[in-house]
Each structure stands twice: as C-alpha cells, then as structure tokens.
C-alpha cells in the first residue's frame, strides 16, 4: 500500500518541525511518508516534462526521486528550493565582472524553474505556507493593516535627511529596523562565516542630529522609522487558518507589579501567559491574514497603556515553539491536523 506523502521544506535544526512531525506521525498512525528537504541538502536535479497529454515534474535529491503529482500535502517552513550552484573562478577584475554577470544570468534561469516548481506545489498540494511568504513585504502589510483599521505606529520610510529630522521633532523616541531581512550570513575567505544584522534599534533626537549634521545629499538607504510605542504588554500571536493563539509578554513588569527595579536574570524570564484578544481585533487580524494570503504566521502587537492594540509586523515563518510551550497551546497538533486534513478533503 502506498503511504500518503508529505513534503516538508525546513532547516535541519528547526525544532518546531520535529515537534509537528511527531504529532503527524502520532495522529496518522504512521500512515504517511515524510519527504523532508532541508536547506542543507540540495536538490540534485530537476526534470519538467510537458506536452498536451501530461505534465510531470520530478525533483531528485541525494537519495530519492520525488514526483510532484504524488504529493498529498506540503509544509513550507524554512529555506529555499535551490539547485547546485555553478561555480566561477575569479582571477582578475575583468573575468570577475564577467563571472558576476554570468552568475546573474544563471541565477535568473534557475529561478524560473524553481518558481515554476513552487507554483506547482501550490497548485497540487494542501499547502501550509509557501516559499513566497518568507519574502512578504513589510510595507505592504503595514499599509494593509492601516487600511483595515488596525492601529499602526506612525511610520516613515525615507532617505531624506529633512524628512527624518521633522519626524524626529514630532517623536522624541524612534525605532528603526530592517525592511527586508533581519540578518544575513556572509561566508569568509579563510574559515566560517559572519552573521550580520541589527534587529530593532532605538534612536533619539541626538542620533538624528548626528545623521543630519553629516554633510552630503540624501542618506545612503531609504530606511524604516517608526514612532516608539509605549507598552503595557507585548503580544505574540500565532495564527493558523482562522484560529488565534495569543501570548502576553509582561516585559514591563514594573507597571503591574510595582516592582520598579529589575535585574536581567535568566532564572526570571519575563512572564508569558495565554491571552484573549478582543473580538474586533481578531476580526481585523483575520482579514489582514486573508488579504495577505497567509494561512499561518506570527503577529507582533503591542498593547499600549491606553489599551490600544498596535500592529507591528507578521513573521510568516516565525518560531512558535516558545509560545506554544509557555501557554500550553496545541499548535503543533493543529498544524499536523491541518496537513493531514489537506489530503482528506480532496
């Protein structure tokens, strides 16, 4: 008997993936086979066959061949579909430039094939998340949230000094964070690699003045600046197909416990407890996720001292293990059930 097939794209170190797979195995009684593509294991080859009678797409990994039409469901968690990279040796400046452009050409060719496979994965399988979710545009989401009537922090994206200065005069404290990726990893010539990134950074009027004082035209990059939002609670909300799993993080413990001095102590992590969102907030967030085409994701919000729910961002492939464990939420089981039901419905 042929087992049902589930394709999981993830990284080998992602603990959440293993937890969900444990549930999947338990719920299905082992009646399915998992094909796991990890970012560390390349697809060895791809073959697409198309004519007026049939279409077949086959991916070959190190140890197996996988026909897309045999898959029952798919879970995109981490990583990218990628083929073995062609290598170019750079000897001098000229061949370096040639190699660079050849590289771009080759990448574009490969992308067409990989995207085609992605689109087909979406078409033929019950899919939880897509690779495209990973690159979702932060500004699109902020705009969408604002249009749906969800509070967002006052936001500026600019590389214009004057605009930043004016914004800084309006808000004594700003935050800035990356628009695209949070961090990138750069391989080093000799050994290993470095990971570079900055996370969310607070800036104040003095920082802006320093920037402003530096001579020259526009700033090097258009960047995201947002008004700093005062917190009563931080909310981390996992969303899955219309259901909400919210967690409140008491990061401002002093306000509620009236303990006004806190040392950072790993034995006393911030309190993280289950939370119940007001119904109107749920409704708007649900609309946001649906408009954005996201079946699941982690939403970051702030509850302000004035009881306003402010939307910060959605991480479509965020970690939810921390949230599930602290709140005893059955997220792993629900994802497994979602993937299993996917093929029952067909």
């Amino acid at each position, binding site marked *: 008997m042929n087992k049902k097939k589930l394709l999981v794209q993830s990284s080998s170190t992602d603990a959440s993936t293993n937890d969900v797979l444990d*549930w999947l195995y338990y719920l299905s009684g082992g009646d399915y086979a998992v094909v796991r593509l990890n970012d560390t294991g390349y697809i060895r080859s791809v073959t697409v066959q198309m004519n007026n009678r049939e279409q077949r797409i086959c991916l070959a990994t190190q140890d197996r061949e996988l026909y897309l039409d045999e898959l029952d469901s798919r879970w995109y968690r981490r990583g990218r579909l990628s083929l073995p990279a062609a290598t170019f040796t750079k000897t001098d400046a000229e061949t370096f430039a040639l190699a660079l452009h050849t590289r771009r050409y080759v990448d574009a060719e490969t992308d067409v094939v990989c995207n085609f496979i992605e689109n087909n994965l979406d078409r033929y399988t019950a899919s939880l998340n897509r690779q495209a979710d990973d690159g979702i545009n932060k500004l699109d989401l902020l705009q969408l949230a604002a249009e749906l009537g969800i509070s967002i922090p006052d936001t500026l994206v600019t590389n214009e000094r004057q605009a930043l200065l004016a914004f800084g005069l309006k808000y004594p404290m700003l935050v800035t964070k990356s628009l695209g990726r949070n961090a990138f990893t750069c391989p080093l010539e000799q050994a290993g690699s470095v990971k570079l990134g900055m996370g969310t950074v607070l800036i104040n009027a003095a920082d802006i003045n320093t920037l402003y004082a530096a001579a020259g035209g526009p700033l090097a990059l258009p960047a995201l600046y947002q008004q700093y939002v005062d917190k009563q609670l931080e909310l981390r909300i996992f969303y899955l197909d219309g259901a909400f799993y919210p967690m409140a993080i008491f990061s401002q413990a002093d306000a509620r416990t009236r303990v006004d001095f806190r040392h950072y102590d790993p034995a006393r992590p911030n309190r993280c407890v289950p939370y119940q969102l007001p119904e109107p907030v749920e409704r708007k967030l649900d609309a946001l996720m649906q408009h954005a085409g996201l079946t699941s994701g982690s939403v970051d919000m702030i509850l302000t001292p004035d009881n306003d729910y402010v939307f910060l961002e959605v991480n479509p492939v965020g970690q939810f293990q921390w949230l599930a464990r602290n709140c005893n939420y*059955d997220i792993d*089981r629900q994802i497994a059930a979602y993937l299993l039901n996917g093929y029952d419905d067909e």
Partner: protein
Amino acid sequence: MVMEELLLLYACCIPVRGARRSVICDLQRAQVFPVPNSLYDLFDARGRLRLSQLRRSNTDTADRAVLEEYIGFLLREELAFLCSEAEAPRFPRLSREWLYPAVISNCIIDARHTTAHIHADLLEQLAALCCNHIQFRFFETVDRYWLEQLLDLIAQSQVKSVSLLLRAGADADSEGWPDQLLARYLKIQNLTIHGCKASQCIAWARPGQARPVWAVMEVLSALHCGVIAPHYFSPNIPAFTEALHYNSCLNRKLSIDAAGYIRNCPSMPATFGHVDDTRLADAIRQPGFQQYWTLTKDEIAVCRDCEFRYICTDCRAYLEEPDNDRSKPLKCGYDPYTATCQDWSSSLLRQATFGHYQQQTS
C-alpha cells in the same frame, strides 16, 4: 465608581492546596513556593483575589498587616499581577491538557552486559509507538565494541534521546571514554557510571553542560528506583498536566527487563510476554498493562492530601502498604499532615517494608 482591583495569579503559577499548607507551582520558572492555606483560600477558582474587597473587610490592623505581607510576597516573586475587573477576562487560565504525541513516551531497556534483545526490529517497533526516548541500564560491565554498534543503530533511528547507565570496569571508567561517547553519539543526553572505585568516585557532572556524566560509587540495580525527594520534583507544564490526568510514573511507559520480558515498569512484578514472541504493540494492549496509567495522585492515600501531588513522581513498585495498590510510595519521607520531611530510609518501618521487596526479587 471605584474600579474593583484584582490580584491575578499568572496563568503559569498554579496553587495546590495540601492538608497542612499549600504551594504555588511556578511552571514557567520551575519553582515551588510553600504558602499558608489561608493565602490559598483568598483566591477564587480562577486564581483571582479581590483586593479592594479584602482590604475593605480586613479592618483589623493585624489581619491587614498579614494581608499586605501576602500581597507584597506575590508581587515580589512575580506570581501575581494587578489588574482591573474589566481586564481580567483577557487573561484565561492555562489549558490543563497534557500534550504528548506518543503511545509510549519512553522505554527503559535493562541488560546485564550484552543482550540479544536489542535489535533493529525492536527499535522499529518502538518507532511505531512514537517512542523517542530510551534509557539503557547495564548492570554489569558492557563490551565497548558491542555498545558502540548499538549506538550506531540508534544514531540512524528516529530516537531523539538516549540515557545510559554503565557499570564501571573495563573501559567505562577509563579517562576519556565517556567524552568520546558523548562526542560521537549526540543523542546521549546523560551518562551515569555506577560502581566506581572509591578513589575514582569523582562527580563528573560538568556545570553548565547540558549532557552530564555522573560517576557514582554505588552498584545500582532495578531496586534503585522510586525515590521521592524534592530535587526530583518537576514543576513544569508537561509534568504537571500529566500528573493531573495520569500516573506520573507509569503512564505510557514501557520497559524490557534483562531477561527480555516486557513490562510497564522494570521494578514491578507483572510481565506481558517476551520480546522474542510478543510484539510491543500487542503487549501494551494486554489487560493489565495500562492498569495504573490513569491512577492519579488524587486517588492515592496520603498523596491526595499532599500539596506536591502534581509535581511529584509517583511510584507503584514500592508501597508503604505492599498489599494496597493505592497506598503512598514507600520511598517518600514527606508527611503532608505535619508538613515535615524525613529521609525515607531513616524510618525503621519503611526499611522493614523495603526488606520485603528485596526478598521478593532475590
């Protein structure tokens, strides 16, 4: 109108009432706080304490001082926080469900030295039961080559963690071997070497290392189990929710004794077939195998009155009254009626009872 002020326990801080006193189990920070029953009684079933109301009704200065001391303690330890009546419904309680995706959560496999009972097919049977955690207990010196072959087999299986008990002698206590094992087999979570010579009885536990190696002088046997002491308490969500609904020692456990017989617990007399002729999945479905799985501490004498009942590991193998399968574990020296503790083995009566178990097995 005055807004009613509440003191609300964080959802992960769960109070449990005992005969003499209560505890607040902090399941997030894995801590236990003993508190007087009078404090427990101030909270309603949803963990709420009506602050303004209490302050109004406790006008006596002495009572009021005690009340304020309680409140100060709860806030200082961050066990509770202040909120208004209107906000309270935003903070639901923690789900009491035990979430564990396995038919068998872990398996103890005993052996004297090498054994023919552990093979690829057995590991596959365990995989089918979603059993991802195995403890091997070798009571005599084990052949190094054989053990490494076994660990190679496990390295390729779905098993996630292995706990090893080895007998000193031959290679096991030689300097360096434990390190090599740990370096080569990443699934080994902890390694205990028993029967070490007095001169070598160094605690090998490395502070800060998540995969400790312990050397102990005692020679261990299956009788070395069931000891209940505060440092074995597990104030965390999985253990607490399991204990609410199931037996905290026997639920979803499986063991294979040194002779190859299948058991729920290695220290209990009942066997359910031999691995040579019984599939594990069939053994656990035999009548009696799961007999104690749903026996909670709420049904066990003395324990049912104990404030530690949901963070304490039970034991059904060694009982205070050997003929009463709902009596308190023998190897517990805690008395919830006086809230005092003594070493279980210091009681002559308990020693005599343990002697009875020792005779049974010899």
